[in-house]
């Protein structure tokens, strides 16, 4: 398929999936759209980060949720918040941007930490180690209730971000009968997506990006040409983890709370599905992958409730997850290059 055909398919799929949302919902369409686009932005950001790991460097990372989690927890704990069973409010805290910066750095350092043992391992073992490390992170966060709030999580942090909302923004959003708080988070996450993509566009065509791709192709040759392959891989781990950290922060603000069940392995698999759908190694792929993914996801409940009359909410959600699993499988088998991935750079058929 040539480049323009790929783009036409992508755009047609994107708009028709959004059109589906309009068709299936008799009212409140704008709210539903706003909700799904907010999630799409946050997950697109995470998928962009994962693409740095897998698409650019060939690292099989299945612990992405933990990078998002580290970013979220560190940032939230540094701004005013309330945590734990008692929900005691901590009024003191750093300004949001500073906390976010530290959160990003913490996520990167966690990436470095996870990268260190992983450097010696072959692909499939890296997958096991990263998913296990992410579970360790989650279990520890749950366990360290005095700091992280454990299963009770962290709440009352939203104003740290929401207080920067301009008045005209509120007026505009309310006139559309939408919730300003969520739109604000969605807007900021999409702005982040574009900023990060600008950065990555610059990086991936730069000597540094070239070096990472070389590592992806053949580490021995990289070494033979005098480059430190391990350090390059660690840098990639750190950058991707940092981006994931930002995404985790926005995810927390979108929910208005965080607790450990958010950062389960399924979150990682969602991000993987989006990355594969958009196209492994494609810069803009995650944007479209994420929008289509969320449009489908947000509508499955309705379709499912038509098929299964008496199913409860959890079961209906099951249909959605089933679809995610099916999507991952079918894409891997029939279209591993996704929507915008280059067939020539297809990474997944590597032995």
């Amino acid at each position, binding site marked *: 398929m040539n480049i323009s055909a790929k783009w036409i398919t992508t755009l047609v799929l994107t708009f028709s999936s959004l059109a589906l949302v309009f068709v299936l919902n008799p009212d409140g369409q704008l709210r539903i759209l706003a909700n799904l686009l907010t999630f799409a932005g946050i997950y697109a950001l995470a998928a962009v980060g994962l693409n740095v790991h897998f698409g650019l460097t060939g690292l099989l990372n299945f612990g992405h949720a933990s990078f998002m989690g580290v970013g979220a927890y560190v940032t939230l704990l540094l701004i005013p918040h309330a945590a734990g069973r008692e929900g005691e409010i901590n009024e003191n805290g750093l300004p949001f941007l500073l906390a976010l910066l530290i959160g990003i750095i913490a996520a990167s350092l966690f990436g470095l930490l996870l990268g260190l043992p992983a450097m010696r391992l072959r692909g499939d*073992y890296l997958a096991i180690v990263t998913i296990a490390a992410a579970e360790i992170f989650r279990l520890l966060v749950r*366990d360290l209730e005095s700091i992280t709030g454990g299963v009770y999580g962290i709440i009352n942090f939203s104003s740290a971000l929401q207080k920067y909302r301009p008045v005209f923004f509120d007026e505009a959003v309310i006139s559309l009968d939408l919730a300003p708080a969520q739109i604000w988070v969605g807007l900021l996450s999409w702005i982040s997506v574009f900023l990060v993509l600008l950065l990555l566009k610059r990086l991936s065509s730069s000597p540094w990006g070239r070096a990472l791709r070389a590592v992806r192709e053949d580490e021995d040759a990289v070494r033979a040409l005098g480059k430190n392959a391990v350090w390059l891989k660690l840098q990639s781990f750190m950058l991707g983890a940092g981006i994931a950290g930002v995404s985790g922060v926005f995810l927390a603000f979108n929910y208005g709370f965080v607790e450990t069940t958010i950062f389960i392995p*399924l979150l990682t698999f969602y991000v993987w599905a989006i990355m594969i759908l958009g196209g492994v190694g494609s810069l803009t792929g995650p944007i479209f992958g994420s929008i289509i993914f969320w449009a489908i996801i947000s509508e499955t409940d309705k379709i499912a409730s038509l098929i299964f009359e*008496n*199913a409860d909410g959890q*079961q209906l959600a099951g249909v959605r997850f*089933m679809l995610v*699993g099916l999507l991952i*499988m079918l894409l*891997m088998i029939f279209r591993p290059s996704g929507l915008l991935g280059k067939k020539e750079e297809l990474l997944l058929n590597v032995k």
Partner: protein
Amino acid sequence: MIDQLGNGLLLGIIISVASVALSLLYSVTRIVNFAHGEIIALGAIMTLFFSNPVDSRVIYLDRFSPLGLDFVISAFLAVILCGVFGGLLELILFRPLRKAEVGNIAILVVTIGLSIFIRHLYLIFATGRVQNFPLELERRVTYLFFDMTPRNFRVLIAGIIVMVLIGLLLTFTRIGKAMRAVRDSGELASISGINSDNIILITWISSSMLAGLAGIFQGVINDIRYNMGFLILLLVFAGTVLGGIGTSFGAMVGGLLIGIFVQVSVAFPFMEGHIEAKNAVALGLMIVILLFRPQGIFGQKERIS
């Protein structure tokens, strides 16, 4: 600590059986099967479906009524069904992928998709509630120096018998030897006149039957949930890696050790008040082992990149 030893043995036997199954499949096919957990769950869920009394209020999605069969017969049927399921997976999904020379990494991702798909299929049909087999409650009895219910004790014995049987089958039967042969070298096996496709099919079937059995054990000792397999999967990976992936004996011992380790670690002084994090300790152990001895305790060197 002694109190926990009994629990550790019980958890260990579940993980051990599941680890052997995973390791068997990996050694013959080189597939890291993330859907292994779902086959574990299938064993328990099918047993529940067969054995629940007909008049129980559990009706699967308003369509399927339970059958109310005897528990042992149910378990037997469930294990057979797991085998059939594993065989179908190979025939419908994995054999075509292998013939199309799809890479290992891609297949790994496929098993993840498969895992998510099947797990939520269970959620839809078997609901998200925690359930139990229709078995009578029993009182704990002391065996040697640990307490457990007679039923759990029987599970433990059954588990040990199954392990011994697996060992014997792998060592003495033609098929078992052929599995080990394909593991050593698939090419040499076909040069010897063995149709490795058949051996791989049999491996899928037997691995899935074992996984299903592990699930039934889990259901008896603890409870049944749609995601019970995924919850235990990482511990199964840990057991397999600890023993050395690809060696059945190693997986047996590794699984048992992980089970005991998880339960006994609860009694460590530094774990006081942190019982929830006990799995983290086992997973941490796995990472440390992969770091310093990637081939596991009993495995051969091979898999450092």
